[in-house]
């Protein structure tokens, strides 16, 4: 099944939680949001992303002093799944 809706909810919750903890650097949340926008739709609806999000959210709620560690982790994962522009690969025989 697709985790799209659940992942969107978890991500919104993570953003909300982090925005309160990163007020000194207001550019961080828009950056994280833009990484999320650029990620592939398939990954955003995956169980893998749900696991990463769930873990980051639980951790940031229990260890607020490491908020940037978790944001960085999520950014790295999203960057790794950035939707690539279509490459001119010749798949036809």
């Amino acid at each position, binding site marked *: 099944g697709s985790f799209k809706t659940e992942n969107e909810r978890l991500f919104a919750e993570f953003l909300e939680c982090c925005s309160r903890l990163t007020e000194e650097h207001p550019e961080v949340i828009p*950056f994280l949001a833009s990484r999320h926008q650029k990620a592939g739709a398939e990954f955003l609806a995956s169980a893998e992303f749900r696991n990463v999000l769930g873990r980051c959210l639980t951790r940031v709620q229990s260890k607020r002093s*490491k908020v940037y560690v978790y944001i*960085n982790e999520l950014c790295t994962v999203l960057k790794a799944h950035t939707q690539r522009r279509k490459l001119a690969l010749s798949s036809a025989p």
Partner: protein
Amino acid sequence: GAVPMEEEEDDDDPENRIAKKMLLEEIKANLSSD
């Protein structure tokens, strides 16, 4: 009454400090490349 829980200590953690530095540098690099 309720006990306020205020913990503003995100610079106390070395791992957090490094992650913050990396993240802010990446944001800066992204802004300048746009």
